[in-house]
């Protein structure tokens, strides 16, 4: 589930490259629907018409939903394409969309979708089981060209079969319980036959979907969409029926965050993406709305590289976990829009359990654990064992504006417990290499994903195991959850896996990534979807 995301990449930094992909981090593959948004119903009667202009941080590079899965691509393509199912951003529950119902077999290897009747693409062709099958055939035929973030979702897919005009069955070679969530993502949305008929390389600016908006023009810096008349199959979680209120949507690219904020405040755009934590208060003070949602998935935190001494000692890891004061990090570096981590997963992830009591700040106990492990205080305050200082290297990548400040504070907190944390800023490429060669003790990361399977992609000890995870008792839990079709049983396994990760300190969680948009007061109904991406704008209107 590594959703690629290009969040606060400084525009000029050369090799920001990988980490965007690397950490899949924060952008998010948003889908679905309206969660914490701008009071859709609170603003009186919805008004028809108007153009909504949204400033994005980075350009959407293709309207092919399977080519890119970064923030910009997801925000734009979500308006053009519908998915088989929808995911409720508040509960994580799977809801009907293009499929009115579905069945999953007990081993999670077979998914049968019953399509909604009367759906058409914007060129007039009807949605049929054959079209859905053709979409998945096309995905399998172009596996090498798919965005790598999408590949895991279809890795084990063996094929699709249309059993009648409205029913299609997908079969997997091995259990794949996370598929429903993946099917709700933009990457697996359904394209029109006319788009599938184009060679892959041509599906950049002339794509056809069944969504609430139709692509008008696609240029790197500006993308225009117009309303699809007759649209009547909005995602369930939007609580909106019928066509969009807006006539047009225009996405512009504004890389500089201060220029985005200034453009919003001077009325040159109606909404902006990627508001840095440091700007949230000034946006609020300027009388604009702030729309935020915690990203589901792996929270921001430190991954210990467990193959390295001394982090191979679980007690040392546990001590470090106790020495981090999470609320202090949130209060000093971020805003109240960000939640303190209470598990390894964010609280909006399906299958999350609250383990906050195990993640309390307790420097006294941390000291006892370190003393017991043989790391004792010396003259300069840094602990030593066998003449070796307790110096640990944490590699990090500048993919979020808060990273550096958060890590500097954590460094100061650990120093109080006699641990010398060295911060090492790396480029994306250096990180890939450094992880392979086990150069670091810690790696600062997060990963946005609307499914608990992110635990497996992060902590599986199967190759390539970049984090050198050693925790063997954890592995069966990670495998079983993917093979469990029943959501309740699966959540139980995910809960056990989270307990195990926290108890063994296989991850030192700190705070939850939060996606923050801002909008002018006249924008109503703007919201973020289940993957923390922009929800379909069908229900958005301007007063």
């Amino acid at each position: 589930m590594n959703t690629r995301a290009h969040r606060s990449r400084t525009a000029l930094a050369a090799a920001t490259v990988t980490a965007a992909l690397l950490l899949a981090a924060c952008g998010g593959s948003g889908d679905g629907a309206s969660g914490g948004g701008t009071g859709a119903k609170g603003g009186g009667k919805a008004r028809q018409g108007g153009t909504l202009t949204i400033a994005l941080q980075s350009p959407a590079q293709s309207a092919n939903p399977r080519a890119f899965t970064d923030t910009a691509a997801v925000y734009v393509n979500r308006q053009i394409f519908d998915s088989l199912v929808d995911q409720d951003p508040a509960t994580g529950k799977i809801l009907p969309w293009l499929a009115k119902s579905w069945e999953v077999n007990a081993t999670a290897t077979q998914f049968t979708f019953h399509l909604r009747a009367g759906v058409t693409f914007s060129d007039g062709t009807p949605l049929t089981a054959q079209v859905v099958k053709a979409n998945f055939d096309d995905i399998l035929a172009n596996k090498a060209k798919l965005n790598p973030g999408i590949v895991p979702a279809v890795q084990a897919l063996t094929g699709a079969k249309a059993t009648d005009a409205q029913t299609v069955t997908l079969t997997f070679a091995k259990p794949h319980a996370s598929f429903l969530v993946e099917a709700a993502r933009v990457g697996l949305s359904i394209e029109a036959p006319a788009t599938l008929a184009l060679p892959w390389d041509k599906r950049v600016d002339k794509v056809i979907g069944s969504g609430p908006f139709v692509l008008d023009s696609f240029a790197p810096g500006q993308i225009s969409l117009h309303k699809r008349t007759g649209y009547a199959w909005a995602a369930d979680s939007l609580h909106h029926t019928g066509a969009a209120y807006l006539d047009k949507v225009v996405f512009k690219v504004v890389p500089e965050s201060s220029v985005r904020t200034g453009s919003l405040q001077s009325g040159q755009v109606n909404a902006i993406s990627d508001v840095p934590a440091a700007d949230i208060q000034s946006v609020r003070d300027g009388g604009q709305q702030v729309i935020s949602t915690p990203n589901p998935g792996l929270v921001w935190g430190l991954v210990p590289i467990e193959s390295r001494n001394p982090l191979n000692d679980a007690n040392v890891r546990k001590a470090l976990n106790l020495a981090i004061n999470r609320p202090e990090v949130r209060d000093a570096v971020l805003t109240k829009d960000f939640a303190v981590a209470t598990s390894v997963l964010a609280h909006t992830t399906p299958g999350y359990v609250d383990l906050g009591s195990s993640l309390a700040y307790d420097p006294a106990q941390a000291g006892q654990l370190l003393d017991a492990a043989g790391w004792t205080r010396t003259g300069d305050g840094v602990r030593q064992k066998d003449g070796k200082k307790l110096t640990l290297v944490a590699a990090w990548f500048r993919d979020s504006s808060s990273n550096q400040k958060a890590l500097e504070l954590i460094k100061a907190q650990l120093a109080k417990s006699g641990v010398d944390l060295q911060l090492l800023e790396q480029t994306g490429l250096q990180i890939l290499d450094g992880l392979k060669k086990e150069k670091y003790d810690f790696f600062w990361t997060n990963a946005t994903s609307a499914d608990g399977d992110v635990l497996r992609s992060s902590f599986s000890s199967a190759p390539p195991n970049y984090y050198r995870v050693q925790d063997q008792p954890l592995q069966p839990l990670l495998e079983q959850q993917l093979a469990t079709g029943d959501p309740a049983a699966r959540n139980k396994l995910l809960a056990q896996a989270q307990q195990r990760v926290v108890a063994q300190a296989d991850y030192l969680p700190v705070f939850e990534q939060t996606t923050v948009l801002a909008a002018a007061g006249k924008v109503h109904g703007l919201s973020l979807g289940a993957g923390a991406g922009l929800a379909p704008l069908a229900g958005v209107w301007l007063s």
Partner: protein
Amino acid sequence: MNGVSGMPRYLLWRVGQALFVVWAAFTISFAVLYTLPSDPVAVMAGPNSELTPAELAAMRHDLGLDRPVLTQYLSQLGHLLRGDLGQSIQSREQVSHLIGQALPPTAAITAAGLGAGLLCGTALALATSLVRQRWARGLLDSLPPLGVSVPSYWVGLLLLQQFSFHWHLFPAIGNEGAGSMVLPTITLALPVAAVIAQLLGRSLDAALREGYADTARAKGVSRLAVHVRHGLRNAVLPAMTMVGLLVGGMLSGSVVVETVFSRDGLGRLATTAVSQQDLPVVQGLVLLGAAVFAAVNLLVDLLYPVIDPRIVRQ
């Protein structure tokens, strides 16, 4: 007589040099980009990737990255000679198409910035040399160093704050309309004007101390005419050489300006391509930069003999 036979040879020699520069830029950028320990496929896949080695190999093969370096180099050079810059690794579009799309807006602000910068720089240099009051001259003299030392990033944000966010005179973002070009043009023109004013001012001073200036004055030519016709024409050569270099600087300046003003163009294309390790696009841009640089310098060289006929005779 010499000038007639000398000119074609001079031309040929300079064109040959320009082509060599472009080839060298291609080769060096190829060597740097392709021998770096970077793997665009691994970059695309990321560390949590569940792609099998076979699938990664298939992606590499699909992109032609599995061939020996020399084969890749020769094949690219061959394509280049046919005008084919290859395909973007990320969007799979033709690089020449991507560059063709991005070129006009960058060319527009670069040309406008260069023109405005040259005009203002020349005017400032002339004004400084014409002004008689010591304090006024001191004031004008202090402007170029100031213009050279303020970073254009900061100038751009400052202009936006005042002229767009505060006074709503010009749009802050985008490429639409002439209004959107004003602030980027000023931002790009400022350092050009400063450098030109500094350089021209100095050589103008030197030219005006020459005997021919005194002769002109003695003949009763007006002060302005002495400065423009006799001073400026002789002082302009070093400034022209500088223009060749400034154009190169402006191409890199467009990265900053296009970021600050959210404009489409080569700068944005370059930023995106570099951040995604889209090597063919990066290489296409390097090549374009080298070609523009070589062409402008060639043009400057060819203009020398027009302004100063002594150059060809040498």
